[in-house]
């Protein structure tokens, strides 16, 4: 079955660099960097000038158009300006995760080495603190004077390489062209009716597809201002994110489901008036009805409109967005193997979606990656005659897309298929762990696959956790795990975006027996 979004109108600009030039005419604040309780606003013109100085530094370091440079900064104006400057220089950006802690920069860079090796960049744009530990030429400061003019680019030229989060396997670099990036941004913006009167706020890491495209390129392209927070600040203080959103009259923000859940469960202070908020994009991981309900229950009284929460589906291989829930076209949740799947809406403009007989979602659009960087085999496996095989399972019902899991993640227990997300959600809740603090793994047993559930538990929650987790799984899913393992908070291997890295977790815990 196949569903299609409305046609994508012709792109109003030819490349990202044109959108960057346009923002240079803005003398009002465009980017406000929020660090804890401090903030610093940059007008479009100031940021453009900063980007032009980064461009000069990057060109001065010898980068030629078409060459790659890693962008490795915290979530602030340096990230944005260096990225924009790199694009102006005609370079290809490789955003990588900035270490959460700089206490051991050598170790932090060692962890990034596999990605650096895979990306094979000419330069690394990073902070003075990390540069000494980078075994490549680096640029840490913008030049004193700006470069004049942007290098010409064609639509098919690569703009950035987005390393996929790698929750299911080895990280791969999705090569995103200027045209794909623009198509995706334009398509998402049309679906959300973005415009200059909007006001964005984001705590998402910019090196992640949702942060880069949803939080940075949309404001860049549609010319609305953005308040940018650091992920760590959000995770520590979700209240501050909500208070800031209310304070500035934010109209649009995006986050994975766990972010919205964290807001609903951990934000302690009344945020203020949230009535201007009209799009809260919920995607990048399975969307839970409970999150939507909890968020609404918590913030509906503060003016948050139910219609603002928009489940969505996207992946880095399509630059980002594929489908978005449209509240004017309501769709009921779909019963699927004993659980409720919220609709992630219909395809975005210019996007076609089909579900093949095996249940795998396939996507065709102008936003598709050109391929995986230097990986023709994986590219050929993923791109089939213009269609992207997503590896995600889904259903199409009454023109709406529903995501039911990942092909390789199915846990088959006693002949019944389970999606690990459901098991993990229940286990984490029962153990009092954060939503991403559990992993469900299938391991070969003597007769059949066995189910291992690993939960992160802090000392104060550890008493009786085995019993609580087993009880909840039986009660809610009718599932008896073969083993429940408890580990200390932070012990589960994770991707840079915080998702549990399943293959690594399987290697760590899959073979253990209690």
């Amino acid at each position, binding site marked *: 079955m196949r569903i299609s979004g409305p046609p994508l109108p*012709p792109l*109003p*600009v*030819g490349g990202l660099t*044109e959108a960057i*030039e*346009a923002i240079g*005419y*803005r*003398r*009002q*604040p*465009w980017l406000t960097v929020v660090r804890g309780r401090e903030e610093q606003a940059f007008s*479009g*013109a100031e940021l453009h000038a900063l980007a032009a100085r980064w461009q000069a530094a990057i060109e001065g370091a010898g980068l030629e158009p078409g060459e790659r440079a890693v962008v490795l900064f915290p979530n602030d104006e340096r990230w944005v300006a260096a990225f924009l400057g790199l694009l102006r220089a005609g370079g290809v950006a490789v955003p990588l995760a900035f270490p959460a802690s700089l206490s051991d920069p050598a170790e932090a860079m060692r962890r990034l080495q596999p990605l650096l090796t895979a990306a094979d960049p000419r330069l690394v744009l990073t902070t003075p603190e990390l540069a000494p530990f980078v075994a490549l030429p680096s640029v840490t400061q913008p030049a004193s004077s700006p470069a004049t003019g942007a290098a010409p680019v064609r639509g098919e030229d690569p703009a950035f390489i987005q390393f996929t989060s790698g929750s299911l396997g080895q990280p791969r670099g999705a090569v995103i062209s200027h045209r794909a990036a623009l198509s995706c941004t334009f398509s998402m913006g049309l679906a959300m009716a973005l*415009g*200059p*009167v909007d006001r964005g706020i984001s705590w998402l890491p910019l090196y992640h597809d949702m942060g880069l495209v949803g939080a940075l390129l949309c404001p860049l392209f549609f*010319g609305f*201002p953005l308040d940018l927070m650091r992920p760590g600040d959000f995770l520590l203080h979700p209240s501050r994110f909500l208070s800031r959103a209310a304070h500035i009259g934010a109209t649009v923000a995006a986050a994975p489901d766990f972010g919205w859940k964290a807001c609903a469960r951990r934000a302690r202070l009344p945020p203020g008036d949230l009535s201007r908020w009209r799009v809260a994009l919920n995607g990048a991981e399975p969307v839970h009805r409970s999150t939507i309900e909890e968020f609404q229950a918590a913030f509906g009284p503060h003016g948050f409109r139910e219609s603002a929460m928009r489940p969505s589906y996207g992946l880095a291989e399509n630059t980002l967005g594929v489908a978005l829930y449209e509240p004017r076209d309501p769709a009921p949740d779909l019963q699927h193997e004993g659980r409720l799947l919220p609709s992630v809406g219909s395809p975005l403009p210019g996007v076609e979606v089909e579900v093949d007989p095996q249940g795998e979602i396939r996507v065709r659009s102008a936003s598709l990656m050109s391929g995986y960087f230097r990986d023709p085999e994986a590219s050929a496996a993923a791109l089939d005659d213009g269609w992207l095989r997503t590896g995600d399972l889904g259903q199409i019902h009454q023109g709406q897309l529903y995501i039911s899991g990942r092909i390789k993640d199915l846990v088959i227990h006693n002949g019944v298929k389970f999606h690990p997300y459901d098991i993990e959600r229940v286990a984490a809740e029962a153990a009092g762990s954060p939503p991403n603090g559990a992993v469900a793994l299938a391991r070969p047993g003597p007769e059949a696959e066995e189910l291992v559930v690993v939960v992160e538990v802090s000392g104060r929650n550890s008493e009786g956790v085995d019993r609580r987790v087993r009880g909840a799984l039986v009660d809610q899913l009718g599932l008896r795990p073969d083993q429940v393992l408890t580990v200390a908070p932070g012990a589960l291997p994770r991707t840079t975006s915080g998702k549990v890295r399943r293959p690594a977790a399987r290697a760590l815990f899959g073979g253990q027996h209690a």
Partner: protein
Amino acid sequence: MPEALILGAGGFLGLHALDALRALGEEPRCGRRARSNVLGLRSRKARMASADLDDEASLVEAMRGCDRVLHLAGHYPRTSLDPATATRTGLEQSRRVLNAAAAAGVQRLVYVSSTATVAPNPEGLSDERHSYPSPPSHGLYHALKWQMERLFLDEQRFEVRVACPSGCLGPGDLRVGTSALLIALARGMDPPHPDGTVALVDARDVGQGLARLLLAERAPKRLILSAENHRLHELLCSVAPRYGVPEPSPALSAAEAIARADEEEARSVRENRRPALSREIVDLVVHGQPLSARLAEEQLGLRWTPLSQTLDALDAWARRLSLIPSAKDQPPCSAPPTRPASSASSPT
């Protein structure tokens, strides 16, 4: 934060400039005369300020606190029948705007002129370097636009930039200026027209260009905003199938078109209506020349919407307002009808 003021914000180009400025984060004041049509401004919830080009004090007041002014309200004579009054009005109003801007402490003013002031280039495309040394003698419109532009270019008290947009097409042309011939063609009216080069541009691109010219730290003193060069008759023939109407009758000769326009203007004054064929349009077409707007592309990063997309937008808007028949009322484009020989007016 200093503000911007738009004079002529409620007009065709003014509204597009307002939209473009808003897209760049500005919330400009919009000057309005007491009796001007402000429907477009109201629907955009624009901030309005009284500003009358015949009242210098009102201009000073409107400009107070503004560091930048975009002036699209230059005098536009409805006919060419009274050159002396039109010239006097145009120049006096221009001086008032300049004096008011100086008095209010404005730092930069962008004046919207016309490509009528761009002189021919015997070697090819004309650009910003090509100017007439003295007022061109093609008619009132060319001469007046040249004199007004000269006043603004000579201003020394603050920075002035001059934009020269070519024939603007696009949604929102309520007075159906440059679009008049296309609308008439689409309505099956076989509009009489001269032939010559017409330079055209999407009004939305002009809005963007004006906004950027107003806000850019560095920009040329004089800038052409123009996308495509066409021969008018060929263009009308090529778009006829889009509306399911026959190709237009052959073009009038220049002399016949001028005579027809003069006659039509005189009649329009007697009957208190707009002329169906104005002398200004005839002069612009007859003396039209191919233009290059490369400077605007290079200096302001402007890109031009292809004419087909501009026409799509114009059609959609004009159909919504029933200025042209809706698509379903028109025959399919695959077999455009031909005009009966009896209805064709042959050129002399």
